[in-house]
């Protein structure tokens, strides 16, 4: 077709997704949607294949495509203009029950021509624990309401009986109503704009442009794959819950213009809700693939075609009903994403042309803590600790990772201000800052993660509770590249106040150990934050790149001055000796030489 018209239609499709995202955020008004950007809007072709993925939580782009396809299968012959379908069953297409998909057919002159789909993490889904992550759920049946596909809006009319039934099962029906309304408004905007696009240019012309857009993405991605060396790269992730460790093993093979992700050898599904279904795994591996390999290619079905996934049934990355999955998005999906980021980073690093695009693993481990309870204004509140969106960047082949720089699968997140949290919850932060030594050491250091401590403050009930679905307190998960170390693991500590009745600490500049009381590690379940106790969380840094003992000594010196690396680690790991805040060149050379000798001397010892 005419390349000018194609260019205009392509631009307009991008803007349609943008406008729909704006609408979603506007109508919802919730913190997780607006601050965490925990949302996604995409357009799909008439057969449900991905046409245009937006910048949201990228895990969802392929799963929502499957949601469209399964709605098409289930409702074939009974899909009408103005219908909106709801789907949140993980065994059908969703990632977990609290990420609800609303899927809308788009008709033009009576003919089904496209689909739009969006999701938000709804305020509550009626699982055993509030907020959606349900560490205490033994199976899918206790993870709240789930539907493999139900008509929520029929011909433009809300099905009130269906809505009432859903709202009857959730903790805060008003907030969930708002979430659903925002998704309906979002789909309506996408539908209206698509329809006017087709009215202006003709449905045929638009569909031709869409087909061309998909073909272009496929061609471009295959061309890029062909430029990369053929080979096989491996990575592994450990997920520990309550002392039980599960592995995600990945072998990624690249042959010419094809890419195979093979998860054979991954552990059987877990009794805990960190499992994910195969659609979720597919989403997990595409989340880093889009921005790492297809940063300049439109994210659509064309990118999916050269990729194959092998995920053994009954494993943690392709669990079978009724395994619980509510923590999947920060559990196995995130590990699939990390493993894929690691192997893709290795492959990019193997190419002279694309080495600058390779990165060690970013923010490998969300800590997903939901606080809940009565706040200082007397109202019941549920809220995620938004620091979980503020992960650390992995080191690149040419630069350090970004300190507390976010994550790859959700490119535009942010965390709330301390003042915002303290205004909404009866808590007070003792500190919130970057955590020293958390960034994976390397020639280029992984970005540092952070640490925070919270105490109850003026709480009408003496404190609050929190749901924690923390993993990674035993294993570093942000793998390094080319000799770089992984970022430090997460740490979750409940500090129990001393028996002597001393007041809760008012300040703790010295960090965790400056908070009086006994320390108990927590990671999974529901815990109190009451009285004079404190909660400490440290979150992972990014992986490093290259051998730390070749890092520029001045960079190490600056890191120590900025409190990002301890003097101890500067010496032990980087082999840099500091004197009066400056690098001692001679001592540093000697120290590094000594480290090299010790490395080879190991042979004798073994």
């Amino acid at each position, binding site marked *: 077709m005419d390349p000018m018209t194609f260019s205009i239609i392509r631009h307009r499709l991008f803007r349609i997704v943008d406008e729909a995202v704006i609408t979603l955020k506007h109508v919802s008004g919730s913190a997780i949607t607006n601050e965490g950007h925990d949302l996604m809007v995409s357009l799909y072709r008439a057969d449900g294949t991905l046409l245009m993925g937006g910048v949201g939580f990228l895990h969802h782009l392929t799963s929502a495509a499957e949601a469209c396809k399964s709605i098409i299968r289930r409702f074939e012959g009974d899909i009408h203009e103005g219908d909106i379908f709801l789907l949140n069953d993980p065994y059908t297409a969703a990632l977990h029950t609290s990420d609800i998909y609303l899927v809308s057919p788009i008709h033009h002159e009576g003919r089904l021509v496209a689909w739009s789909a969006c999701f938000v993490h709804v305020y509550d889904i009626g699982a055993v624990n509030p907020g959606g992550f349900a560490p205490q759920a033994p199976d899918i049946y206790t993870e709240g309401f789930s539907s493999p596909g139900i008509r929520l809006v029929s011909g433009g009319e809300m099905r009130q009986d269906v809505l009432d039934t859903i709202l009857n099962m959730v903790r805060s029906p008003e907030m969930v109503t708002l979430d659903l309304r925002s998704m309906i408004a979002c789909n309506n905007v996408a539908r209206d704009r698509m329809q006017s696009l087709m009215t202006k240019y003709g449905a045929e012309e638009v569909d031709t442009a869409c087909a061309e857009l998909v073909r272009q993405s496929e061609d471009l991605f295959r061309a890029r794959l062909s430029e990369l*060396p053929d080979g096989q*790269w491996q990575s592994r992730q450990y997920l520990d819950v309550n002392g039980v460790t599960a592995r995600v093993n990945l072998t990624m093979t690249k042959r010419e213009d094809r890419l195979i992700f093979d998860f054979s050898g991954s552990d059987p599904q877990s009794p805990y809700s960190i499992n994910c279904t195969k659609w979720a795994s597919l989403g997990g591996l595409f989340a880093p693939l889009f921005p790492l390999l297809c940063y300049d290619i439109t994210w659509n079905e064309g990118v999916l075609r050269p990729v194959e996934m092998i995920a053994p049934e009954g494993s943690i990355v392709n669990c079978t009903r009724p395994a619980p999955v509510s923590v999947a998005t920060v559990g196995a999906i995130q590990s699939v994403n990390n493993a894929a980021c690691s192997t893709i980073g290795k492959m990019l690093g193997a190419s002279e042309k694309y080495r600058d695009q390779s990165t060690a693993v970013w923010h490998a481990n969300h800590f997903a803590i939901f606080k809940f309870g009565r706040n200082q204004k007397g109202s019941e509140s549920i809220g995620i600790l938004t620091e979980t969106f503020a992960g650390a960047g992995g080191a690149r*082949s040419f630069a350090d990772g970004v300190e507390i720089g976010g994550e790859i699968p959700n490119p535009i997140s942010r965390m709330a201000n301390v003042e915002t949290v303290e205004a909404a919850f009866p808590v007070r932060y003792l500190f919130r800052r970057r955590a020293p*030594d958390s960034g994976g050491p390397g020639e280029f250091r992984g970005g540092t993660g952070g640490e925070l401590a919270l105490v109850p403050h003026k709480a009408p009930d003496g404190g609050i509770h929190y749901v924690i679905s923390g993993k990674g307190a*035993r294993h570093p998960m942000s793998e390094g590249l080319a000799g770089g170390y992984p970022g430090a693991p997460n740490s979750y500590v409940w500090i129990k106040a001393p028996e002597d009745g001393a007041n809760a600490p008012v300040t703790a500049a010295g960090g965790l150990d400056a908070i009086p009381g006994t320390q108990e590690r927590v990671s999974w379940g529901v815990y109190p934050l009451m009285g004079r106790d404190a909660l400490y969380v440290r979150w992972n840094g990014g992986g490093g790149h290259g*051998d730390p003992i070749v890092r520029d000594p001045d960079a190490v010196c600056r890191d120590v001055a900025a409190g990002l690396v301890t003097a101890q680690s500067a010496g032990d790991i980087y082999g840099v000796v500091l004197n009066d805040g400056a690098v001692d060149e001679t001592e540093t050379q000697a120290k590094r030489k000594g480290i090299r000798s010790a490395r080879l001397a190991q042979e004798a010892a073994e």
Partner: protein
Amino acid sequence: MSDQDRISASVAVMEGQAVCAACGQDLGLATEPWKEHAQRREIPLAQAGGPAFDTGHEGVVLRHFYCPSCAALLDTETAMAEDPTLNDILASRG
């Protein structure tokens, strides 16, 4: 594969052989696991990277793979003791 390719930023390829990128030390065929030719060491996680790596649990190690000639650190792996080595290989293009 070509000499422009690498196995990683730290392991280069020369005429089909994996070599240390720092000193050129031969690490075997690029189409086979190079780590078998590297110097391997396992460090308990608690000692691997400063206090932040001390999780209070044992059984997790950080594996180091060094160049047997110049002692460059070529790769790391987080592992539980019994788990196999992760291998990265290039394929010869037919």
